[in-house]
Each structure stands twice: as C-alpha cells, then as structure tokens.
C-alpha cells in the first residue's frame, strides 16, 4: 500500500530505508544526465579502472547523448599524442568557443555606431569590471586563432592528411581558415580607433582592385565611398552574425568529415586507400571516456590558464585615438595576417597582384588535394609537393615582411625622426618623448648641438650660429605658425637631473646623425612650454640644408657626398620641419 494515494518516492523510503532510496534516486539521475553512466561507472572511469559492467557503459553516451554523438568512442593511440596533430585542430575548436564566449560579453557593452563605439571602448576599459580583461582575452584569442588555424593547415599539408579520402575535409578546413581571417579582420574595425580604421581601410581597398566588380564590392563592404556608420554596422553584423554562423556550420561539417574518415594516422601507418584509420585494433584503442575526455578538460584548463596569464602580465589589446578619416597615421599597415597581401601589392599592378594572383593562390590552396593525387603520404615520395609547400611558406614570410610599412615606402628623414619622437602609443610602443616623466620635462629650449660635441659652450655657440644664419628666425616663425606665440627662444643645457630627457635628446641627436646625408648640416631642437596647469607642450623641430633628392632618395656626388641645393645667391637653402604634442601629468605614459 502506498504512503500517498499514488506510487511515490516515499514508498521506496518505506521499503528500502532512506539512505538506499536516496542513493538510488541519485544514481538514476546521474545515469540520465550522462546518458548511460551511473555513479559507479563514473568512479571507475575516473580512477582508470576497467569498466565492471557489460555491455561497456562508457560507450552508451556516444550512442545516446547529443553532445557526444559526433565524438568517436575511441581513438587510435597513434593520434592521441602530441604528434601528428599537435592538438592544433582541437585548439582551433577551443578558440571558436573561447571567442564566442568572450565576444558575447563584449557585445553587452558595444554599440556599432561611429558616434559611440569609441566611447564604448573607453568605458569597457575604465567602467566595466573585467572589461579590459575580457577585451584582451578576445583580442589575443583572435590573433592566436588565426595563427593556430594556419598552423593546423600547415600540419595537415606536411603530413599529407589531405589525401584521399579526406580531400573535402581539407576543402572545408580551407573555408574555415578564410572565415577565421575575415572574422579577425571584421573585428579589427569595431573599436573605431585610428589603428582599426586605417588597417581596415587598407585591407578593404584591396577589394577595390578587383576588375569590373571591385568598386561595387567596395561599396557593398564599406556601405559608402568611405568607411562610416554604414560600414561599421556591416562589419559588426558580419563579425557577430554572418561569419560566426558560417563558421559554426563549417566547423560542424569539417568535424563530421574528420570523424567519418577517422583521424588521419601518421603517414607511415596509413596508406592511401586503406581504411586503417577507421578500424582501430583492440590494443591501440584509447577510449574517449575516460582518457580523451580528461585530457581535453585538462587542456581547456591549461589553455585558458595560459591565456589568462598572458593577458594579465604580457598582452593588452591596443586602443589608439579615435578614428579620424582625415588623418592617415604614418606607417599604417593591414593586420599582420594580411601583410603578405599588402606586400604583394607593392610588387606592381594592383589588379594582378591584389586580386588575380591571390585568388589563384587561394584557389590553388583550396584545390591542393585535387591537384596532388599522388598515392603516398610519406615524405620521401612527396618531394615535389613538399618543396612547393615550403617555397610558398617562404614566399609568404618574405611577402609579409615586404608588407611592413618600412619596406619600399620612402618616408622623408625629418618626418621619420619627428615621428620616432612623438608617435602615439600602439602595441606597447610609443614616441620616445611620451614616457619621459612629467617633472623631467623642464620648461625651456634645448638643442641636439649639446649632445654632438664635448664643448661645454656648445649651446652658446649654437645660439650664436643660428642667430647669424637665420635659423633662429626660422624657428620662431615655425613656432608662431604652429600657434605657439613666442618672440624669442633662449637655448640652454638640458638639466643634469632630467636623466630621461637627456637620454631622449641624445637619441634625437643620434637619429639626425644617422640620417646625416638627407638631413645635411641638420640639427634638432626641442621647445618645452607650460600650456596649462599640469599640461606641457613639446615642439620638436628639425632644421637642415636642402640637398638634391631623387624620388625621396639622396643624390650623391662623385665623392659620395650629398649635393646641397643653393639659392640664387649661392647660399644653402634652409629647411625646417616640426610637430608638437601635449603631455598631461596624469597621462601615465611612463608607467
């Protein structure tokens, strides 16, 4: 007779006692949650014991549960080690989830509008607890993911794992690589700072080079002739919606294909056409539960731990100043993973090198398994394919180097020197003057002449010289033109206790000497003025004599000397160039 008018748990308690009844309920719940493994099974699995029940309860979750239905119930022991997979495929998947989770948190604080996006970034940094932390994780994860996915492809190539029957797996993997690149690229724009705007402008302008459709594609992508509100919204929607959706679909297809054909074994263990990957001999089976599962959970912990350690101590996502379509920063480049493309554009015709060639190249990579149909995966039989792969890798590295701003683009020496002194912080680098402690920025006028000679009267001599040759007037005129109204400038030695400032002035002098050919008879001055309480203005000015230049490069005479340009009186022509920055005592560049 039931305790209640219907059968219930209380009947069990009455019949078996409380302890046993509760245990049975718990056991049953665990078995349902794990889709087949009860408490005893779990304990055995985690202890590393053999399963005590038949049929093996560790296989049931693979058959009955959603989460494990695609995971193989056992692996070949030849693929569970570091080689041949290097865990790269697993890591790629890990980063898909890692980026999704951190990205969702960032989405909470972000609005895709040029009016507020940058303000959102600032507030993520200074008003959202763990905001900077999450952003750093997301950014670092994105860069790592591009690298990992690329390495995964390299590994697949070098082990020949793309060969029959895994051709289509390679193809979907190639799509995932492209999607990863685009995801990273679209995310690049979202902070709406100078770095974002210009890297993406350069990247997107490559689309413009496409014949016939280039202009339309560019318009579609940017939402207008310039990147603006429409472009930002498009990039945002691509980044959070369209591309992730495609990525998830293709991740599913890719993994399904991996499982269908079995993880590819090391080349020596698997011959083309043999189904050895799917038929794992009993003595080589490594079961998913518990071995692979514990290993994966451990790697989740280890990877996340490494990421967290990196963002706490070693990496902070850059945030430059607000995007300004009117001001192109010196040395702008595309994101590093597109540098090869930028390097290629420097080779010549924009349409050929920017569109046709990369398309052919990508099509070639996508089609590798259909082109290379040789029947062996062993290195000895793949000399040609491996050579092609290595050459392409080397070319990519060289092209990426050529994509750097310093390659092939001649910046005038004065611009370079002034830029080195004052450029705004990006990627933990900044102009030399910025990290000088505020109290060492002693108001006054200083010259590099003090640092190029041992003469104690160097500054006095310098003043005398430039007063005579008109340099002083030029400096004052330049300052006035730059809205710093001064009538006179009195040069002095840099105070001895301003160690950092002395150091920067020394570097300043060195840089001018280094560019001595172009900055002929050149010297630099630095004027520091107090602008407001706690705010100083720094005006570095470079003066030199004009010399003959050809396409930005110095023309040398027979003796290897630059040729000064002379005016109608036969005097050298003086040139001057300046910039200025403001430094607030609380800006914290010098931490």
């Amino acid at each position, binding site marked *: 007779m039931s305790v209640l008018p219907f059968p219930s748990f209380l009947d069990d308690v009455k019949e078996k006692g409380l302890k046993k009844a509760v245990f049975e309920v718990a056991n049953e719940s665990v078995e349902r949650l794990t889709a087949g493994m009860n408490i005893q099974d779990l304990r055995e699995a985690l*202890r590393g014991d053999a399963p005590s029940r038949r049929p093996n309860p560790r296989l049931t979750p693979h058959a009955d549960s959603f989460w494990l239905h695609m995971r193989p119930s056992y692996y070949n022991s030849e693929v569970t080690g570091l080689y041949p997979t290097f865990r790269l495929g697993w890591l790629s998947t890990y980063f898909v989830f890692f980026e999704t989770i951190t990205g969702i948190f960032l989405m909470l604080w972000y609005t895709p509008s040029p009016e507020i996006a940058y303000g959102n970034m600032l507030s993520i940094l200074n008003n959202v607890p763990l905001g900077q932390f999450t952003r750093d994780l997301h950014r670092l994860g994105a860069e790592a993911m591009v690298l990992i996915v690329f390495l995964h492809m390299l590994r697949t190539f070098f082990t020949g794992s793309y060969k029959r029957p895994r051709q289509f797996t390679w193809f979907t993997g190639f799509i995932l690589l492209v999607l990863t690149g685009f995801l990273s690229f679209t995310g690049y724009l979202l902070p709406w700072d100078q770095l974002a705007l210009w890297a993406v402008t350069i990247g997107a302008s490559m689309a413009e080079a496409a014949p016939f459709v280039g202009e339309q594609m560019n318009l579609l992508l940017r939402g207008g002739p310039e990147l603006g509100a429409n472009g930002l919204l498009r990039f945002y929607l691509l980044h959070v919606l369209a591309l992730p959706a495609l990525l998830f679909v293709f991740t599913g297809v890719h993994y399904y294909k991996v499982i269908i054909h079995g993880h590819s074994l090391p080349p020596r263990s698997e011959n083309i056409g043999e189904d050895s990957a799917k038929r794992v001999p009993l003595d080589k089976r490594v079961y998913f539960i518990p071995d692979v599962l514990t290993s994966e959970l451990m790697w989740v912990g280890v990877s996340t731990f490494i990421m967290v350690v990196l963002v706490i101590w070693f990496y902070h996502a850059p945030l430059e100043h607000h995007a300004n379509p009117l001001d192109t920063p010196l040395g702008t480049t595309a994101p590093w993973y597109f540098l090869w493309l930028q390097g290629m554009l420097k080779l010549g015709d924009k349409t050929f090198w920017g569109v046709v060639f990369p398309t052919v190249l990508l099509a070639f990579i996508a089609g590798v398994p259909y082109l290379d149909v040789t029947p062996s995966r062993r290195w000895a039989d793949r000399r040609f394919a491996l050579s092609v792969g290595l050459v392409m890798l080397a070319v990519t590295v060289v092209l990426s180097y050529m994509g750097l701003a310093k390659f092939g683009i001649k910046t005038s020496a004065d611009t370079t020197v002034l830029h080195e002194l004052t450029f705004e912080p990006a990627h933990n680098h900044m102009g030399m003057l910025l990290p000088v402690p505020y109290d060492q920025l002693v108001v006054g006028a200083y010259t590099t002449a003090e640092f190029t000679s041992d003469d104690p009267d160097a500054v006095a001599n310098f003043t005398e010289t430039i007063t005579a040759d008109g340099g002083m007037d030029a400096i004052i005129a330049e300052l006035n033109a730059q*809205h710093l109204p001064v009538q006179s400038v009195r040069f002095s030695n840099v105070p001895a206790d301003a160690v950092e400032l002395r150091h920067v002035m020394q570097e300043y002098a060195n840089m001018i000497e280094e560019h001595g050919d172009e900055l002929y008879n050149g010297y630099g001055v630095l004027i520091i003025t107090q602008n407001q309480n706690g705010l100083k203005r720094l005006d570095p000015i470079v003066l030199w004599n004009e010399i003959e230049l050809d396409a930005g490069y110095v023309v040398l005479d027979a003796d290897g000397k630059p040729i000064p340009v002379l005016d109608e009186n036969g005097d050298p022509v003086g040139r001057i160039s300046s910039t200025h920055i403001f430094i607030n005592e609380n800006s914290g560049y010098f931490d």
Partner: protein
Amino acid sequence: MLQRMLIEKIESRILVGTAMFLGLMLLVGWVMIKEESRMREVDIQHRAQAVERGAEIFAASCATCHGADGLGGPRAPALNNPQLFGHNFFAEVDSEIAKIEAIPAEVDSIQATLNGEEQILSTDREALESRLAAIYEEYGEDLNGVDQRLTELAAERQSISNQIQGAVDKGYNPEEYDRLAQVAWGSTLDAFLSGTISAGRPVSASYWPEPMAAWSQSFGGQMRGDEVANLTAYIMNWDRADWSVEDLLAVNQFAVVPVVGVLAEAEEVDVLSRLDDILALTGDPQNGQVLYTQQACQGCHLGGIIGPDTVGTWTRINDVRLQDETLAGYTAHQYLLESIIDPAAYIPEGYAAGQMPANFGNLSDQELADLMAYVESQDQ
C-alpha cells in the same frame, strides 16, 4: 615520446586540470580585486589624454580668437577666466560681513528669549548665556566691536575692489562673478561649454567681429563628438581651486552679456542729428524695397497684423500719427526715422510695445534714406 599522451596517467591529468581551474579562479579573483583601482587609474589617464587632444584642437582652431593662453582678445572673450568658472573674489569677506551684521539681531533675540515669559530648559538657558557672554567678550557689552569689525571688513572689501579695478575697467562686473548665472544657464559648465562649441552662438555676431561658429558636425561644423568632448575637457582644465587676483587681471577680454535687440536697454538715440545727414542724401525707393524685403520688414508689417500695414504708411503718418499730441513738433521724416531706429519711442494705438527689434540703427545712412524713400512711396 611524441606519440604518447603528454600526461599519461589519468590521475595526473585530473590533478593538473583541477589545479589549472583553481589557479584560474585565483587569478580572475585577483584581477577582480584590483579592478576598481585599475579602472580609476585608466579613467584618470583617459581624462588626461582628452586634455592633450583638446589642447591640440584649441591651438589649431580656437587660439586665433580666444588667445593661445585662453585669455581672450578683441575677437573673443577669455576662457582662462575666473568668471567663467564662477569664482567670487568677495565670497570670503562677504560671508564674514553677513555673519558680523547678524550679531546685534542675535543679541536681541537671545535677550528676548532669556527675559521672556516662556519657560526654557535650563541647558538651553546656559547655552544662550554662554553665547551671549562670548559675544560680549569679543565685541564689548555695547557691541562697539561689531561696527569696528565691519569697518575693517569694509576696508578689506574695498581693498579687493581696488585690486580688481583693472579688470572692472576691462568690463568685469564683480556682482556678476559667475558666467553661468549671468546668462541664466540652468545646467553644468561642462554642458555650457560643449553646447556653445557644438552649436556656436550666431547672436554673438551683434557684439563680436565674427560670431562664434558652430563647430560640431551635428551643427554643420567640422568637429566630431569626441573632439568637442576633448576640447571641453581642455577648457575645463583651466579651472583651479585658488584663482588669484593676478589671474583675473591677466584676462584681456571678458564675456559680453548676450542680449537680444528688443530686450536691450535703449541707448539714447540721437534721431535728429542723424536725420539731417540722411535727408541730405537722395533715397532710392527701388533699393529701399529690396532692403525692406532683406530686413524682413514685411514679416510683421504685411497686412498690419503685428505692426502697422506697409500699404498706406506714409499717408497714415501724416494724417493720423502726427495729430497725436505727444508727437507735437515732429516732422513726418523725423517720425519715420525714429520709428525705424528707435521703435520703442512711440507705440501706435492698437499695437504692443517691444515687438520691433531695435537694431535697425545699424543700417547705413544711405540704406536708411533708401528705406525711407520706399516707405514714402506708400502713400496710397
């Protein structure tokens, strides 16, 4: 070696994994603990960098009129200016004066309470008595000390007044020490500045050589929202807790109280002397009509709704207005000119005062002659 699991024993894997997750929790917790101070620090840095950016914009776009040091000039008022930040140089001495002035009344009130009929608690009585004793001790039983102190304070006030005389000569009004109160601004200084920068102030054309332009892109200017914010941060950075008299004296140019024409206190307009000059010229009624349209006269005078009708004005002046006793001795031209450049002088029956702007005196003599010639043609 490469082909084995990196950590081969399952218990080691569980141990490492657990240690990693615990480590993660510790690290994130540690980050969380430091988060408050980190955010504060970043906030300070961002504000500081906003000032730097604002300084660049100010030097490039604002310094020309407002002065490189923000002290103003003949084209625009000072921003590095105690008045903008509402500093009252008399605050201390005035509050002291108010305190001292209240003492005789306080003594009366204490005595009334002590000698009154109402019962008071003994502790209250003691407190009042000791307060009274303290006052007597400081200012004497006859309170002579109060007057003496007030004389001292008045001298002190006068001395401050003398010190700032230089600024008063340049247009500073010590009674209106707060710019925001002066213009009856109901919000913060920050909002006042960014609002003025963003939208400009077209009306300032009437008292500066050029009006303050609208700078924000939302108002047709060139600055983005963040640039306006940075510029505002830079101007706000001129504020200091200890404004000195020297700061005030350094100001080259104080702000003007913005006034709309009709509300301005009418200056003495010398109609007659101007009339002679104007009548010496020949007015062109054609050009007068153009001016009539340009100055939007018909907006009010069309159909006689807000001001008297354009049609038939000249007839009405002669037949109706000049019959009014208050206008005895006026000629028709004198009346017409006065009505244009000093409209408040006479309001015809049936119309409200203060409707017509008082700034048509800005027109040149020739323009006024043209305009009058046009009105004269309205004699139907």
